[in-house]
């Protein structure tokens, strides 16, 4: 039954994507009919055009898989972690700081410490809304949003003070010993001698996706976290420390986002943390990634890669003269339809489940549906009586 449910969710996500792409095509046709088809082909296939582009997909996927895992993990515990952005950027700062300044560490260890520092910093940033939610019952969404701004400004301040590259108005590049290993990806994902930025980050993100899945599905901790998420009162009744679990979930989620920041800025691609008053987009992109993956950690690895694929395809599309805004609209439309994934899942459920249920279940379901419908009709009737 669980396999079937997984299959249903996957099918629903694919359907959502296809419909999103169809609507995207319509937008293209309206904006520039002449280049619409080649432009659409570019966004649909750009990520696979050459090995370098494939590598770039993995590179873009890494941070949003991490923030997606962060949002998805919190969601399973019944929390909406909209603070992934702040956790991500604080993690990035911690990683860059360790990468630039702690050069006394031996290679290998240096990189590991930088990633761990990012995880800790992200966890700290997640822990604040967690504490407020668990012990003062303050809505985590508000606390998370505020922590995003505090994180953004703190990072700007700390980068300027501690690791500033004045010429580029961004952070300094981490030492080579702190950069994530390439794992030979620079040999595989190449186009015309130019390697992509792909590195071990994607592998780490994928492994962490599996780890998160194991935690949620196989461990006692996951059992308790999900119980809290589904029904906090019942969890409390069963002697589960709901406060501790809420805090723990936010700490974990924050840590995942923080690692995302490390994997992003230890990639050796030459980008630094920009000193701008803009919230890190990777944090928010984690929300649709988690949504499209229905918070399933394994699915999030794929949906994150898919989103990155769209990003890369969008870059390819620009060569057909589409303004970047249109590119953004197309990707947004596709992601927008991701929100319908659940809706499709229900439709598929109705079609597929039909013959397999027992008679008793069937009546139960019918009665439930019936009552709902009666309620609806009764409410409607109120409006139509005149």
């Amino acid at each position: 039954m669980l396999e079937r449910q997984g299959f249903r969710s996957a099918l629903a996500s694919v359907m959502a994507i296809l419909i999103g792409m169809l609507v995207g095509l319509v937008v293209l046709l309206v904006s520039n009919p002449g280049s619409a088809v080649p432009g659409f082909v570019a966004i649909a296939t750009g990520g696979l055009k050459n090995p370098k582009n494939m590598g770039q997909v993995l590179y873009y996927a890494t941070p949003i898989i991490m923030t997606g895992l962060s949002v998805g993990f919190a969601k399973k515990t019944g929390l909406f972690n909209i603070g992934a952005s702040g956790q991500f950027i604080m993690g990035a700062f911690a990683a860059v700081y360790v990468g630039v300044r702690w050069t006394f560490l031996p290679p290998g260890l240096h990189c590991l410490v930088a990633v761990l520092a990012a995880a800790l910093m992200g966890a700290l940033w997640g822990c604040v809304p967690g504490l407020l939610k668990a012990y003062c019952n303050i809505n985590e969404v508000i606390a998370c949003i505020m922590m995003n701004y505090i994180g953004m400004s703190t990072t700007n301040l700390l980068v300027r003070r501690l690791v500033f590259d004045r010429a580029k108005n961004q952070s300094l590049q981490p030492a080579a010993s702190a950069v994530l290993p390439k794992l030979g990806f620079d040999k595989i994902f190449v186009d015309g001698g130019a390697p992509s930025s792909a590195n071990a980050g994607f592998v780490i993100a994928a492994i962490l996706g599996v780890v998160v899945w194991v935690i949620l599905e196989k461990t006692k901790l996951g059992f308790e976290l999900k119980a809290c998420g589904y029904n906090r009162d019942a969890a409390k009744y069963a002697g589960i420390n709901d406060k501790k679990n809420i805090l723990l979930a936010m700490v974990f989620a924050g840590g995942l986002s923080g690692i995302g920041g490390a994997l992003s800025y230890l990639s050796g691609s030459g980008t630094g943390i920009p000193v701008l008053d803009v919230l890190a987009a990777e944090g928010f992109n984690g929300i649709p990634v988690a949504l499209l993956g229905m918070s399933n950690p394994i699915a999030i690895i794929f949906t994150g890669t898919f989103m990155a694929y769209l990003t890369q395809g969008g870059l390819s599309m620009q060569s057909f003269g589409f303004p970047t805004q249109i590119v953004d609209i197309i990707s947004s439309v596709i992601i927008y339809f991701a929100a319908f994934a659940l809706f499709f899942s229900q439709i598929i459920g109705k079609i597929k489940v039909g013959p397999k249920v027992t008679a008793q279940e069937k009546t139960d379901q019918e009665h439930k549906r019936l009552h709902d419908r009666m309620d609806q009709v009764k409410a409607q009737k109120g409006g139509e009586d005149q």
Partner: protein
Amino acid sequence: MSEYIIEMCNITKEFPGIIANDDITLQLKKGEIHALLGENGAGKSTLMSVLFGLYQPEKGVIKKDGKEVQIKDPNDANALGIGMVHQHFKLVHNFTVLQNIVLGMETTQHGLLKMDEARKKVVALSEQYGLRVDPDALIEDITVGMQQRVEILKMLYRDNEILIFDEPTAVLTPQEIEELMKIMKGLAAEGKSILFITHKLNEIKEVADRCTVLRKGKYIGTIDVAGVTKEEMSEMMVGRKVELRVEKGPAHPADVVFETQGLTVVNKEHGKKVVNDVSLKVRRGEIVCVAGIDGNGQTELVQAITGLMKADAGTVLLNGEDVTHASIRHKNTHGLGHIPEDRHKHGLVLDYPLAYNLVLQNYFEPEYCAKGFLKYDKIFQYGDSLIEKYDIRSGQGGKTIARSMSGGNQQKAIVAREIDRDPELLIAVQPTRGLDVGAIEYIHRQLVAERDKGKGILLISLELDEVMSLADRILVIYEGEIVAELDPQAVTVQELGLYMAGSKRKAVG
């Protein structure tokens, strides 16, 4: 003119794989109260939705005043004067009573509301039928019983002649039930015809003229209520003899297993003591029942004992150990079992499979958990064993999502989980609320069996019948205080009612 205002003749309604209504005939006389009796899943709701136009039957006809009518949707039903009070009310909470009643049927002049006429009509109707409500009170400020009266007024305001009540007493206190029964009789006397869906035999006995019984989608019969006993009716409903009176021998109370001393809970909002200096004892081998009208501190008392709420004063002793400030987990693993009042809020994680719910109190024990990893094969094995032992019915065994199970089986799952942990004190709060006769009988038997095994049982109940038949000792709670300790053998229901209403009290020994 026909003798019957509504006739549903030979109605058959099929769903893929099941016949929900199999050749059912229901005839409603004008001015009568007609009960529709059946267990959960017997086809009552389906039949009513056919009458309400939500379903089209495969076979059979519906007649109004002897003439065949087509009811294609609820608007048709409404046009024929059929109205319904749902179990869960459909009211706008921040609207007044009057606004709710006229909602959807507002009389206007030049686009402005003309509430005066509506008010006159509502006041006249409430006087005519004895439905005391303040038209200007906000819904959120009035009691559940009054909200129900508003729903009734809504039907009357729309000039409905045929009134369907869907399990109307499930949410009411005993006093409110009595009031509702009076109102229903009044409505019938004024010529309204009432269909009354229920599985409570007492209520049928009290108000209904006739009763149609359904079982598993089949028509069993229509009877004159006055001519049959409750036992006969329940046998018709369940299909076998049901013990309405609980079989139980005399109690053999042993040593005290549980005790509270001066337990007090203060409400944070209004500063009143909702549990006021409660001292009680439960011995092994006895069922102590805390009886009272809903909202007299029972919920808070239990939550203070179990740890869901903090007690402001007093101590709780379990097996002689002071557990007042112990964690919930500590109490649960040291001899406390708790069948909670609200099975959806506290009792189950509805989106978890049944098997997970069955280990909700012991998943962390070495048998099911090693080094932080759960042994899911063991969990499902244990789940299956409980499902078999306690006859919990579900579509897909341990993998069934709890939400999809019927209320009775959900409750059985909770009872199974709590009893199988072998607690020394079992707290059961309204363990049979909303269940049908078969499930009630089952749960009562389990409680008595636990008592006979030498467990202490603390039962909190609002149902006088349950109190009288199960309790070995009755403690009456009124406004958070224990006001009397009574022997069920030596007290009448009427007397008990007086204590519960606070008009009588006696020193507790």
